[in-house]
């Protein structure tokens, strides 16, 4: 980021915008990358900037504004030269992020969400940044800082006050560890770049091998990879630019997940090789990685790996000297939108639109990126495909269970001695995982993230497998000191922040559910509110457009079932409690009239609000 930019110097701005637009050939489908690159130069996207981009791309201005307004990491108002975003997953909360953020705000004389008067800095929260094994974490100008401590907060405050450029901050602040604790077939592979490609005998044979291996999608849904590739391979591209595409879904936003971060950091070659295998099978010439904006720091490293692969003839024209085997990969960055992990929302975003999930059918395998047949696969799925290409289907099929072949990489965080990355053959029990990572006195595990499953000790004998507990990899552990109501409340807030707002049930329902949870948290909830929550959850599940809304109530439903006392202990004895704080509703008139006598209050003992403005009182510990 260029520090001394006023964004007011028209000529300067014009030059920056023009340069970025030219770099992207004024291609409107590249709007996301254009907005990000321009913002990195100009600090923010002013109304004039948006107009200039729209004109340059021949897009309606409102469309550009609408895209900029959709993503959390684009801002069409100034957010300060230093934009600090604290990761606000429940695991960050458990590590004390609320106190640290309060400390930072106090030292900067700031309130969360506000920009300092000198336009220097703003401090706010953001959804899980994928650093749960080394939190509390935060982003400064979209670069991750991990393992925050009070001392580190104080030093960061000083650096900001002294306007020290980010590049000159101590490098150790930005260290992101891989924390690989258990390796199995995938993470323990001994493959060299190109091994998988050299082992391939033909697209049809390769497809058969993937099918025979039983590989299923690792993002969580578990669709057969072989079937997906076969549908895609058989689909015909349409129009003048008919083509097939491979898309790698690296928008790992599920709270508690960080295994794709580690795969891309430690095994990028294998992931790209898996994309190349997919391209070989379906006949794609182009592949796209959709990397979540939180992992911006990996971009240069990934591009370097791609460059090396091109030099080694593992990408580009005539891969391995094989005429007609042409394939290249480009990394696109997201900009802070969990919903883009949903494959059709991801495709919308790749094309430069708001990340709103598409209607299905048609499915991406027939009509995906730019309306063409597209195989969208998870990072881990693609890496596993490369492994299968190199080592054979039979070998792979022998790992795991009958219905879930292979291994699963788990991202483990929360209350355990050794958080990090654990790879297991499918079929491992929850209790085995807990023992390995050093979890004691565990009262609950949240598996598969905020949208996943909350299980209690009686279920720890269950297995990680598609036929029992399927997961994209998030595995959060809560010991006996934690309050499961607060866990659910944190997740409900997450869904409010991340709903795309397309459909009524999710747009309104997530907020209504949040309001109920906050009301209960504040000590104003009654049985009536539990009934309302159930009604909203049912509506979300039945009527929502996509998986986000359909699963947004799971955390409340699960904890209501398994940890009901954590709710009941907060409820008042009355069934019905007012929807708002009666006494607080007289605050403005007390101010206007100067009255504070008993007649200027409602004497209802239960009214004592606990949540102050931005106080984030939801600290679980």
């Amino acid at each position, binding site marked *: 980021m260029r520090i001394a930019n006023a964004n007011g110097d028209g000529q300067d701005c014009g030059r920056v915008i023009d340069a970025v637009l030219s770099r992207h050939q004024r291609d409107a489908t590249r709007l996301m990358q254009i907005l990000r690159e321009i913002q990195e130069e100009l600090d923010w996207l002013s109304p004039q900037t948006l107009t200039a981009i729209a004109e340059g791309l021949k897009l309606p201005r409102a469309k550009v504004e609408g895209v900029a307004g959709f993503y959390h990491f684009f801002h069409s108002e100034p957010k300060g030269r230093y934009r600090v975003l604290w990761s606000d997953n429940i695991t960050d909360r458990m590590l004390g992020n609320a106190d640290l953020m309060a400390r930072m705000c106090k030292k900067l004389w700031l309130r969360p969400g506000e920009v300092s008067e000198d336009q220097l800095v703003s401090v706010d929260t953001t959804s899980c940044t994928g650093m749960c094994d080394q939190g509390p974490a935060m982003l400064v100008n979209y670069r991750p800082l991990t393992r925050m401590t009070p001392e580190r907060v104080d030093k960061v405050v000083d650096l900001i006050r002294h306007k020290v450029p980010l590049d000159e901050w101590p490098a150790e602040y930005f260290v992101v560890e891989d924390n690989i604790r258990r390796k199995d077939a995938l993470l323990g592979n001994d493959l060299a770049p190109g091994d998988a490609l050299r082992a391939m005998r033909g697209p049809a044979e390769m497809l058969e091998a993937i099918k025979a291996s039983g590989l299923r999608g690792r993002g969580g849904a578990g669709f057969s990879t072989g079937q997906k590739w076969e549908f895609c391979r058989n689909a015909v591209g349409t129009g003048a630019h008919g083509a097939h595409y491979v898309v790698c879904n690296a928008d790992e936003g599920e709270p508690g997940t960080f295994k794709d971060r580690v795969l891309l950091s430690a095994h990028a070659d294998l992931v790209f090789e898996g994309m190349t295998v997919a391209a070989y099978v379906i006949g794609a010439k182009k592949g796209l990685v959709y990397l979540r904006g939180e992992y911006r720091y990996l971009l240069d490293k990934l591009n370097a790996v791609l460059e090396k692969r091109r030099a080694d003839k593992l990408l580009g024209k005539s891969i391995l000297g094989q005429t007609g085997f042409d394939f290249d990969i480009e990394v696109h960055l997201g900009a802070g939108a969990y919903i883009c992990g949903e494959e059709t929302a991801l495709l919308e975003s790749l094309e430069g639109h708001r990340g709103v999930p598409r209607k299905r059918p048609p499915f991406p395998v027939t009509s995906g990126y730019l309306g063409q047949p597209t195989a969208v696969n998870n990072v881990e799925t693609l890496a596993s495909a490369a492994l299968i290409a190199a080592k054979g289907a039979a070998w792979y099929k022998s790992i795991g269970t009958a219905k879930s072949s292979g291994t699963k990489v788990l991202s483990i965080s929360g209350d355990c001695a050794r958080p990090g990355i654990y790879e297991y053959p499918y079929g491992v029990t929850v209790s085995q995982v807990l023992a390995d990572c050093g979890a004691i006195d565990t009262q609950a595990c949240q598996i598969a993230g905020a949208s996943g499953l909350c299980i209690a000790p009686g279920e720890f004998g269950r297995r990680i497998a598609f036929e029992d507990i399927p997961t994209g990899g998030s595995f959060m552990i809560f010991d006996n000191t934690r309050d499961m109501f607060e866990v659910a409340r944190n997740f409900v807030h997450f869904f409010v922040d991340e709903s795309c707002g397309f459909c009524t049930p999710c747009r309104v329902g997530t907020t209504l559910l949040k309001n109920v949870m906050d009301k209960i948290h504040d000590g104003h909830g009654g049985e009536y509110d539990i009934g309302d929550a159930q009604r909203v959850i049912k509506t979300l599940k039945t009527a929502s457009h996509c998986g986000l809304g359909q699963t947004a109530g799971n955390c409340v439903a699960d904890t209501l079932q398994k940890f009901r006392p954590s709710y009941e202990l907060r409820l008042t004895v009355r069934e019905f409690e007012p*929807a708002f704080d009666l006494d607080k509703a007289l605050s403005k008139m007390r101010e206007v009239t100067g009255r504070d006598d008993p007649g200027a209050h409602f004497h209802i003992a239960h009214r004592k609000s606990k949540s102050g403005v931005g106080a984030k009182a939801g600290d679980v510990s």
Partner: protein
Amino acid sequence: MNAAAPTKRKLKVATTSLAGCFGCHMSFLDIDERILDLVELVEFDRSPITDIKHCSPDCDLGIIEGGVCNAENVHVLQEFRKNCKILIAMGACAINGGLPAQRNSLDIRDILAAVYARPGRGVHIPNDPEIPLLLNEVHPLHEVVKIDYFLPGCPPSGDAIWKFLTDLLAGRTPILGHGLIHYD
């Protein structure tokens, strides 16, 4: 109450208007001569019709018009909830705040400052303990107490009120149907 009394006891009905315009009460009178049938079934307790100031503790029905805009409204509503078996929100204002709630887009302090500004003599907002304090926002009834039934309309027509009450008095869940259900 006499233990040997016939089972056809008259139901006790209380009514009031909070932040409303009494239009719903006026519409109530539009049931015209059917009011004679009604008084065979009910007797009025606290109501503008009787001028009784407080609810008896054994009211069966409480019918409330208007939303909640000040402290007194809250107290009256709580009295109704405490003393009535069934509480009915009648009319648009009772149900979503109605026209008075359109002030909610403004800060009450700004409203008062504008209303009580006297040219050249500053702002003098009346401040007497007799004057109920306004709430920051106007709220519908069901945000303050539990409401059992809702009768929409601005006002609900005499026919709608009649249908609603006869259903209710007969023990049926009221259903208005086309022509009677109205939000305006």
